[in-house]
Structure formats: structure tokens, C-alpha cells
């Protein structure tokens, strides 16, 4: 197998250990694969299947349901422009037109230099800050064509445009696939402990005796 880097394989096993059943880790591991290569490769799905005890077809079956997983290479920067109702009312479609004409591609395509992929997306929960676009899931609120042009120019020059988003975010712009610049880490000695449901020891210790429990239940 051996798709994941050594560090990511350690991480993958740690993530699996947080779930009562390994299959629950399929989506987190697809994210990890996408983080490693920017998209989900066939080799990645084979190893995820191996690690979680399901078939590779099940991994693809699950993964292909979700829009964020890409099964082919995409740009280093994923530009998502919202055109749903709140953004539409305030110029989201015009913004998308500007993005497409500036980059010379249509939604769904990637620029020839491999830098940008554009997608028209559904509501991204920034409705009061419409119109809105995101780049690698970093928000740009109350966006104008000028802001988009500056973001493109920053990225081409190797600068982070995150501060321009007026979204309370700052710092580096990660490449496509890297979602969180901070990861959850659970120290082994602090874990309450995770077991498959059939191995659970019955009623949790902090509840009172069985007779008093949930008389209303």
C-alpha cells in the first residue's frame, strides 16, 4: 500500500483511533489524502480502504458523494464563488462572470498554469457578507472585482491574500487540500477512551444508580 507519508500514516491511525468504528474515519482520511497531494488518488483510496477495513469501492462510493473531494488534479487555489440567493441579490453572478473572464476559464475548469480552479458553489454561510467567494476555503467577504484582482495578483506573487478577506482571518494561504492550519491533538493520557459500542461497559460511572436514571426517559 504505502500511499501516505510516514507522518501521515501515523496521523491516519491516530484519527482512526478516535472513532468507535474505523469506517467513520473514511471522510477524515480522504481529507488527509487530499491534503497530501491536492486531490484524492487511486492509491490513496486503496490505502484508506486497507486502514479502515472497507473495500476501495466503498471509499470511492462515500467520497464521490461529497463535493469537496476531487478525484483528478485541480488548481493550487480553488476559487469558489457563491451565487445562491443572498449573494445573487447583491451581485454574486456578476462576480462569477468577472472571475471567469479574468482567469479566462469557465466554472469547473482549471487555468493552464495549474494555479486556479473556479467553481460556482452553493451558500457558504456568509450571507450577510454577500457577495462572497472563498479561495481554498478562506473567506473573502463583501467582495468586489477589485478585491478578486488583488487576490489573484497576491497569489501569483507568492503573497498571502487572506487579510484582504475582511473575514477575521489572517496568516498563510494554504495550498488546495490543506483545510486546517491547526489540527486536533488528543494526548493519549487525557483520552476518556474509545471502544466499539458492543464493548462499552454499560452505564457511565458518573450517572446515579440504574433506578434513578432518566425516570422520564
Amino acid at each position, binding site marked *: 500500500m504505502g500511499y501516505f507519508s510516514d507522518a501521515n500514516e501515523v496521523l491516519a491511525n491516530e484519527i482512526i483511533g478516535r472513532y468507535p468504528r474505523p469506517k467513520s474515519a473514511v471522510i477524515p482520511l480522504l481529507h488527509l489524502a487530499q491534503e497530501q497531494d491536492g486531490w484524492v488518488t487511486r492509491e490513496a483510496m486503496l490505502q484508506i480502504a486497507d486502514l479502515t477495513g472497507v473495500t476501495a469501492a466503498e471509499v470511492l462510493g462515500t467520497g464521490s458523494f*461529497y463535493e469537496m473531494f476531487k478525484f483528478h488534479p485541480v488548481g493550487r487555489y480553488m476559487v469558489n464563488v457563491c451565487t445562491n440567493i443572498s449573494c445573487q441579490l447583491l451581485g454574486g453572478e456578476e462576480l462569477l462572470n468577472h472571475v471567469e473572464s479574468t482567469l479566462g476559464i469557465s466554472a469547473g475548469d482549471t487555468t493552464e498554469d495549474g494555479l486556479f480552479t473556479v467553481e460556482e458553489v452553493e451558500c457558504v454561510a456568509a450571507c450577510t457578507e454577500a457577495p462572497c467567494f472563498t479561495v481554498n*476555503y478562506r473567506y473573502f467577504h463583501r467582495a468586489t472585482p477589485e478585491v478578486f484582482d488583488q487576490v489573484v495578483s497576491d497569489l501569483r506573487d507568492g503573497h498571502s491574500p487572506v487579510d484582504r478577506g475582511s473575514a477575521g482571518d489572517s496568516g498563510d494561504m494554504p495550498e488546495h487540500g490543506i483545510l486546517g492550519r491547526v489540527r486536533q491533538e488528543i494526548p493519549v493520557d*487525557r*483520552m476518556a477512551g474509545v471502544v466499539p459500542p458492543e464493548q462499552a461497559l454499560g452505564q457511565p460511572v458518573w450517572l446515579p444508580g440504574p433506578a434513578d436514571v432518566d425516570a422520564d426517559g
Partner: protein
Amino acid sequence: MADASSTSDGYVPHAPGYVVNGGPTLLTGRFLFEDSYTLERSMQTGGYAGLRTALSRTPTEVHDEVRQATLLGRGGAGFPAGVKWGFCPNGIWPRYLVANGDESEPGTYKDRLLMERDPHQLIEGCLIACYALGLSQCFLYVRGEMALAQERIAGALNDAYEAGLVGANVLGSDFSVDIVLHWGAGAYIVGEETALIESLEGNRGMPRLKPPYFPAAIGLYGQPTIVNNVETLSNLAWIMENGADAYKGYGSKASPGTRLFAVSGHVVRPGVYEVEQGVTTFRDLFYGADYCRGISGGHALKAFIPGGGSAPWFFGEHLDLPLEDRAVSEAGSMLGSGAIVVMDETTDAVKACLRLVRFYANESCGKCAPCREGTSWEQKILQRIHDGEGRPADIDLLLSVGNHISPGPYPVASFDTEGLEAVPFPPTQTTICPLGPSSVAPITSAIRRFRHEFEALITRSDSIPVVSEVGT
């Protein structure tokens, strides 16, 4: 307030969209602090005091307090959380908690704000729920596209584990629980609680057959599972610290407390407002100096969506309704996820309707035929009307397709003005979940009120024979 800041127009730069309106801040009290998401700030401002109170009482007492507070679910359905908690069957262990942070209803922006700006308040709420119900693990399901929210929650959980607030023996007690941050990956339907559970089990996010209606009976891995919305859980710390009676001091009797409303679209000051339920009206919210300050550009109001893309539209005659689940539901719509979209008189009703319907067609999971086929029929018919290629029978055809997804009377929000009768809400459905029926709300709302706009676009006079009734 030290380190606190808001601009002269009421916005808070580091909490984008949030507007200081002078009202009570049960949920957004920390938003003024730039470092509101840190454990340090949380602790300095009463963080985890609600958890300490909970741990000093029995789990049953904590459950009773929440039940007495009449905390209504903030995800859309408005079901009382304390009652939902009571649906766990006796003697079946383990039980799980799933925090639903998959916010994606069109128009909705409040859970993302709560997760980004005050993750500790949410974590504290999860802990209180787990303690009260004997839930042995919590999964915090955050929408995949919300990268900053995930980072803030990951950082907060790391600090909380380190500080002994989460994990083994919380605050030295015998209460132990792991909270796991789980990333979604882009699918609106996963906000439906049984689809959420499927997704968490590593499957395609398709809703489960009902009954059972509540995963509290059979949920994650077949075990009793409580699924609560992020905003619902974010209320628990305040309720535990201040008590149910104090909570009921805010809002109305039927809908106590405050709620976050995101007002977007054609208003002067769009934003996220913490508002006392049942006291404030839509008119206050749209026109009040402390709120949105009127319709932008001096235009008149045409219509508004009171509770997210799935809600039937409201009009001028609904402005004096209070922001309260029951009142809005009696008038034929829903407050849903606190997502209010304002459309001014320049709005193209057909275009707005098409965009909403396209959303449901895109997001249909494909499990139930009426939704899978029907939403794409609706989209295609609306698209051709919009493009000036509509056929004379298309309006009837649209209503007929809708009738097969959500049999009438249609959930059209209206009073008995202009010859329109009030009809009951929620709608009936021929599907497992409400996604398909939701697509019918904008269609029936727009056709009943703005039928002339549809007719004006249907320019062809050479009638093409079309069956106006499908499938019968």
C-alpha cells in the same frame, strides 16, 4: 471594555457581520473581544462556569433545568431540546452526542460565527449535554468548507484537553468524555440529522427511513444519539450558569431566550443580530435604527424569506409578526435557521425562485424519486421560463410537479388578503426528508404572489401540447 472594539457603524471587524445592537447578549457576549476564541479569554469572562455548576448537580437535575428553560432547537425544526433529550431509551449504552455544525441552508450565517468566535462556549455546551445524559462521546461535525471554524475548534479542544476540561475525569470528577472534531466534505443534505449520522459512519450522506423519527432511539452505530445544533448547544452554558428562570426572563413565553438572526439581501445594514425572541418584529429588524436601518437604495420591500431557502416567502403584511417560531408557523412559514433574506421591489421573482430551486436540485441526494426527479424537473421548467422559452402550461406543470413532491395545499405563506388563503405549514411530503418539499416553497410562494411575472416571460402564443399533470 478592555480590548473590545466595534466600529461606529456597529460592526465588529474580527466578528464579520455581527452587529452590536444594545440588546441582551446571552450568546455573543465575548464577540467584542478580538481573542474571544481563546481559552484565556473564555476563562476571564466566565467560561466553563456553567460546566462547574452542572457538575455540582446530578445529571437529572441538569436535564430538568434545560427542560424547564424550554430551549427550542435552533437548527430549523424548533423542537425543544430538553424534550428531545428525554427520548433516549432506558438502559441502552453507550449513547452519543453529535453537534450539528453543518450549516448550509441558503441565507444562514450564525453557527459559523459561533464556532469561529466562541468555540469554548460550544464545547462547554457539549460537555453539559454529555454529563446530563450519560453520553460517552461527542462528535463535533463541522461543515468541511469552514476552514477557520475547524481551526478555532481544533485549537480550543487542544487547550481544553490540556486544561483537563475535556477527556478523562473532567475537572477531576468521575465524568469523562472525548470530543472529536469531525470535518464534513460538502453536502447540504448532511444537515439532516439521520444523513449526518450516515456521514459520520463513513457513508454517503443519505437520510434514513423513518420511523424511528429521532436518532435518540436508534442513531450512530445503532445506539441512542442526540443530535443538537451548534447554536442550541451554545445556549447551555448560560442556562446552567444563570438558571432556567433567568433564561425565561428573555424572549416570550413560547420562545424564551435570544436567537441569532442573519439578515441578508437588500437592507442598509445587513448583519447577524442577537434578538430576543417573540419581542422584536420583522419590521423592527428591517427598519429599526438598532438593526438593519431600512431597505437599501430607498426601495420598497417586495418579499422576504423568514427562515432560510426552505421557508415559504413572506410579504409586507407579515412585517408586524414577532420573531417567534409559533407566530411565524401559524402565518404559514417558519423561522427555520434564523436566516432572513430581504428582496426589494427590483428583485426578479422568477430568477430568485430559479436560483433557490437549482440549489435543491443540486443538493438532492437521489434517494427518493419524487425529489431526485422532481427538483430537476422544477429547475428545467423554471430555467426555460426564465430564458423566455416557457410554454403556456408551464406554470400549472410546475405546481403539478410540486404537488407530487409535497402534496397540497401548498405551503404558501399569506394572510387572507388579495384572495389568498392561509394554508397549513409544515408541508406534507412524499419523501423521506424535507429537502424535496423545501424546493416547492419558493415556487408556490412566487407563483401565488407574482404569477404575472411568470406569465410575462412566457411569451409564446403557439401553444405546445404538454400534459399538465405528471405521473397520473
